[in-house]
């Protein structure tokens, strides 16, 4: 098994380095950091390490999650492990490799303090290769507008869980448009639905974080 495969495998298992005790059975064994360092020393093409090792591993992780074999914490461990590897590669990577797929601005709308769902979405998107700007909870339209101005190409993600804050998605979208901002907007949260998304002229909706990556790609025209 090549070192690239080892890297991929340790990303999947979420084993950061030789000192990290998770997963129990890999304790004291070399982790992603160690292997990536070794690969670098062995002069292996860095973008191959990145793509066939780290990213390939993370893709498997996403799949395992969708298949119910992994939980969110499993994913987070892998994400951490991957980050460790990427940090070592960064100085050596050429531009196009580090470039993010795009920017997503997410926030829970005004009056709503639920953010676990939103946070998971953010996490998934980062894992999926996007830069995520999190505006937190209780986000007034002005804040969405401000950030949208700074990033006209960014996709905006709004979350709401209360029947009494859903309407703030409508007003936030309207505020964006009234200010001439054309950023694509996607929405989500327990109380929302595709029907509601259509009604308030949102560009996209998903019922769970997992699908949000696909959705953003679609909205940005990266994927169909």
């Amino acid at each position: 098994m090549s070192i690239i495969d080892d890297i991929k495998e340790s990303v999947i298992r979420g084993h950061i380095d030789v000192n990290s005790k998770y997963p129990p059975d890999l304790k004291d064994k070399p982790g992603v950091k160690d292997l990536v360092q070794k690969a670098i020393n062995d002069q292996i093409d860095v973008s191959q390490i990145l793509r066939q090792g780290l990213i390939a591993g993370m893709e498997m992780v996403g799949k395992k999650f969708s298949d119910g074999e992994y939980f969110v914490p499993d994913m987070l461990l892998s994400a951490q492990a991957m980050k460790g590897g990427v940090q070592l590669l960064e100085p050596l990577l050429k531009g196009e490799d580090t470039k993010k797929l795009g920017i997503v601005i997410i926030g829970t709308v005004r009056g709503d303090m639920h953010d676990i769902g939103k946070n998971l979405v953010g996490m998934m998107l980062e894992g999926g290769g996007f830069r995520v700007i999190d505006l937190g909870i209780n986000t007034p339209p002005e804040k969405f507008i401000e950030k949208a101005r700074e990033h006209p190409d960014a996709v905006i993600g709004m979350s709401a869980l209360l029947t009494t804050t859903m309407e703030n998605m409508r007003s936030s979208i309207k505020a964006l448009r009234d200010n001439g901002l054309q950023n694509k907007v996607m929405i989500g949260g327990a109380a929302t639905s595709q029907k509601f998304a259509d009604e308030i002229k949102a560009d996209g909706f998903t019922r769970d974080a997992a699908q949000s990556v696909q959705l953003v790609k679609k909205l940005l025209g990266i994927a169909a």
Partner: protein
Amino acid sequence: MTFDKLTIAEPGDLIFGRAPKPLKFRRGFEIGSGQVFPEINFTLPQMIIDESSWQEVKQIYKDIIEEVCKRAVDLYTPALVVEFELLPPMTMNPDWGAEITGILAAKLEEFYKKYGLKSALRVTPVDIRDNDRPPLMRSGIMVGNMFKSFELCAQAGADILSIESTGGKEVHDEALVNADLQAIVFALGILAVNDMQFLWDKIVTIADRYNVIPGGDTACGFANTAMVLADKGMIPRTLAAVVRIASIVRSLQAYRQGAVGPGKDCAYEGPFIKIITGTPISMEGKSSACAHLSCLGNISSAYADLWSNESVQNIKLLSTYAPVVSVEQLIYDCRLMNIALKEGNASAIKYRDWMIKSDAFLDPQAYIFQPDIIFAVAQKIVDAASPYKMVLSAVGETLKILDHAISENALKINDTELRWIDILAMQFETLPADEGILIDSMKYSQYADKYLPEEYGIQ
């Protein structure tokens, strides 16, 4: 009020409809002395709450309570508890919450006089401190408005005061998705407990001043979040079970400060509190599927003194509005429990045990709801010396019990879960016996910037 031993000394005595410390209400009935009553909850349909919509908001609550009471009378319910869970703007503007409280109380009074419908009104302001991150728990305008809200609602006709408080949640939310047991225990065993001490001391004072009942709190923001996340396959069910257990002590703290029940419906830790304190509890299960799905549909009713739907929007179904549908279902569920009770202890216990058998072996969160396990865990809690130590020994006991259940094949569980039982056990080993050490180590953790120690009275 300290609880150094179990008020219900026998697992066999832990049952629906009966609590050692029943509660009397002015509109003619008692909770916990031999009958289970419906507790109906409802909320607004999709709409904005502001000055422009306020008249409509009031009308909606008027319509709901009218219809609900009518149905309760038609179905001869022995008594009805209504919960009004404020929505955030109603606590931010305490007058608003009080106005709705007044509307509901007046209608309940009217139905009591006209039709003899016995009733009580539970009012639950929002913990709006959660509005800021990191939240200010003891200072600032949110705190002021929150207590004002309790005060005005008590004046306006509430019979019971409750809250879903969120002290420690700012740490717990992230700890949960990280499945980080250390941070979870810190959030629930230290931050949350300290906040409950502060918060409920004040709530009880207000309740006494207006001579209403200080009900209880719920770990909804912690353990129900975990339950929902587990149900969505996002975190291990075993973790959700552990979080539930770890949340008992923070909810118990309300009773140490003087709360007397009935416990809040969404507080699934209720049975543990009931066995310790002897206070009546409200529970929810299949009846609250409208609010969240669950793996505790029947077992949760095994110890209920009130049976609730948690919450449902006022939207029209094919028959009528959803709150009326809920109250009808609750009333019929209660009828069965009350008939079993009336038939005598053997019948009641039989029915209780069916409820338990129905769910107990299909999910770790249900497994820990068996009487002997509730008894064992509660015993560990009353035996421990400090809240932090209570959480430690309760969690330790639970991990042992689950591990044993799995090795005995007494519990359905898949491999993805199995892996996590071990990880959790490992994490548990690393928890310091001295909470001071944990408090210090958290200062340098990824959670350090999430909370303000001084807001919890710790450095």
